[in-house]
């Protein structure tokens, strides 16, 4: 039976919902216990949130002033020290988890599995390689610890359970380095989520017709709290700047929700969104290739549909 430790990600006193997704993956690994470790200067509030999640058997709160900001060099020795009791140590495949977990693995003398997208058992996982153009099945030795990150876009977040798990303060015996220091975090330039990492993205294509008209895309995105993207055709026509381009020669993204508006769905664009959770397509042309891959398709005039959709939200 597996005994799993999940390293929680959090910011500003809030548990990041990636933790709940790692939990969903952990539940498929045949665990007798799934515990969450919270490292913070004052972990109480976050630990309480983690304890609510369905399936968590214990929360270990590690309080230390050095944990005020997540620094891999500071957290890794602490995680490694806790890891002794577990068969699996998991983190999210976010910049937090990607930065931290390989260090944990190396300190434990273990290899690591990045970006688990499917769980076949306690030691058997699928993960993407070549930007998701091939999927491999990885077998970890049953006699060794599994250190891994779990892909956000591949698992739904577990909700809260009926009762809260116990929260215990954990003290960790580890020498913490001083060679790495947090200076500041500059939040994204706009209030809008960054296109590359946004959980939701709304994109406009050439059919939007002009840079002025792109305002309706921005408005809808803001209503949805989404990032904004554009097809190459829209960028070429000057409707959007090129750092908004989604596709083979632009950004390759994997949001949970992708709304493609007035985008035909050329294969080059689809390359950029093939790993999106749900693709919604709105286009006047019912024959557009995007409808062949969209999970939800609506044929119609975007200039009528988008305002109506915005109202309905």
């Amino acid at each position, binding site marked *: 039976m597996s005994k799993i430790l999940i390293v929680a990600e959090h910011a500003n006193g809030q548990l990041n919902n990636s933790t709940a997704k790692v939990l969903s993956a952990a539940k498929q690994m045949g665990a007798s216990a799934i515990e969450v470790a919270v490292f913070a200067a004052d972990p109480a509030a976050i630990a309480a949130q983690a304890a609510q999640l369905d399936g968590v058997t214990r929360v270990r709160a590690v309080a230390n002033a050095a944990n005020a900001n997540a620094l891999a060099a500071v957290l890794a020795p602490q995680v490694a020290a806790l890891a002794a009791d577990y068969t699996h140590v998991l983190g999210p495949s976010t910049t937090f988890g990607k930065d931290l977990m390989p260090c944990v693995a190396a300190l434990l003398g273990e290899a690591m599995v990045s970006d688990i997208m499917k769980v076949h058992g306690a030691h058997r996982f699928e993960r993407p390689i070549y930007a998701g153009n091939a999927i491999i099945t990885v077998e970890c030795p049953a006699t060794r610890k599994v250190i891994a990150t779990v892909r956000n876009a591949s698992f739904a977040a577990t909700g809260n359970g009926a009762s809260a798990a116990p929260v215990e303060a954990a003290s960790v015996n580890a020498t913490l380095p001083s060679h790495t220091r947090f200076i500041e975090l500059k939040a994204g330039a706009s209030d809008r989520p960054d296109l590359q990492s946004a959980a939701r993205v709304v994109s406009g294509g050439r059919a939007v017709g002009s840079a002025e008209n792109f305002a309706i895309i921005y408005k809808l995105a803001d209503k949805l709290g989404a990032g904004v993207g554009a097809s190459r055709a829209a960028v070429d*026509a000057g409707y959007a700047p090129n750092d908004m381009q989604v596709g083979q*020669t632009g950004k390759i993204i994997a949001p949970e929700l992708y709304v493609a508006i007035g985008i035909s769905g050329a294969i*080059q664009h689809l390359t950029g969104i093939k790993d999106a959770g749900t693709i919604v397509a709105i286009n006047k042309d019912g024959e557009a290739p995007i409808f062949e891959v969209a999970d939800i398709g609506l044929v119609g005039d975007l200039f009528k549909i988008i305002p109506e959709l915005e109202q309905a939200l």
Partner: protein
Amino acid sequence: MSDRESMEYDVVTVGAGPAGLAFAIRLKQLKPDIRVCVIEKASTIGAQILSGAVIEPGPLDALLPQWRKAPPPSCVPATHDEFWWLRDKQHATKLPTPPQMHNAGNYIVSLGAMCAWLAPQAEALGVEIYPGFAAAEPLYDAAGAVCGVRIGDMGVAKDGSHKPAYTQGIDIKAPLTVLAEGARGHLTKQLVARYELDRDSDPQCWSIGIKELWQLAPGKGTSGKIVHTVGWPADTRTYGGSFLYHLDGDRVAVGYVVGLDYADPKLMPFELFQQFKHHPHVKPLFEGGKIVSGGARAIVTGGWQSLPRVEMPGAILIGDTAGLLNVPKIKGTHQAMRSAMLAAEHLAASGKAEGFNFVLRNSPVMAELRKVRNIKPGFKKGFWFGMANAGWETVTAGYSPWTLRNKPDYQQTRKLDAYVPPDRQWLDRDLPPRDRLAAVYFSATEHDEDQPVHLHVADTSVCVTRCAQEFGNPCTKFCPAGVYEMIGSGADMRLQINAANCVHCKTCDIKDPYQIINWVTPEGGAGPNYQNL
């Protein structure tokens, strides 16, 4: 002159295709101490080579006698030939294989893979090969002779300004420049005009070849099988036919060739190719398979009558850039390599360009072209006359006392109001690629979008006025990559050039009715990244 950096060689070769590489290899075999470099605009050798291809191994045997001991990958001996006439959209009749299409002793290859295999052998002899560097223009000395080439600048923005990584292209100076650019080379185009190399020959002619490499469902391939078809979907006034070559591992190279002297202003060669794949005699082969890669390239077909003078002060033309392809065989590689070896031998003996024209014109390369010179032009009078004439020319082995003349392809397009297209009998299509944009995906063509557009249209007002009225903007149809689009309507109509889609086939430079499109090299390393084509 600027203080541009330069490098010096005894010979600079433009193009690392079969001609360029065979030339360099042969030259080094004869003169091991000579300094020769080959520059190639593609990012790797073979990445922009596209050809059927079934090759005659003779020149390869002469160049590298031991080649069969370590052959290139994707090299399959031809086992049998078939020749079919697709009578209409449903029916096909097997015909006797024409003599020129008997391939016993020949090999089905990926020409791109073969060039990638030749390159290290050239380097082992001391040839310096530089992929990723595009020759942008010839260099001339004070006497007006060619004295090398200038490499294009890298890191130039779309508006012409210099990006932070801007790197000026260097000059490669050499007393001899060998142009091995393939069909419709852009430097060759300039040099032919400058030195009037075509003054005494017919205009050059071309076809477009569009090709895909397919991975068939297991067991469906018949390694070594070669099939050619004529007839549908081309109409009787359009020169068109297909090839289908079975490689190993259930892989098939399939393609369609359309003569660029076609008359229909609305013809889409890409569509002809896709229709061909859907003919009931052809389609079953592709079901359950998938496309691996694809692309397009112009094929030079003017032959004997259109061969320009191949020497000029300081430079020579070899291979398809001169125009040595044997049309009825649809083979140019053996001719290209032979001409390359002749050039190397001439150079090793004489040390200069002068005299190469005579050598080439009095060689078996020219004799082979002369023998078949009347076959392609005969098709101007339609499919039936063309076939009958081809039969006559084959039987008489080119001894006809007459020579049919070639006319420029771009002048053959009829105006919209002067042409009634035949009922083409198109089928519904469901095999990939669905459209040109999907096809472009499989060419893996890549151009930094922030660079000057490499398709120079001299006067875009022609596009929205005369051309729109007279021809309906045929560039939007003949380009196999969907580079040209007319956006908007009425007074707002304008030409949009999606330069990033370009697969460097050169069709637009050839077929544009007003000859205002000039293809130049984009930034070195840009363009298609063909795999095994």
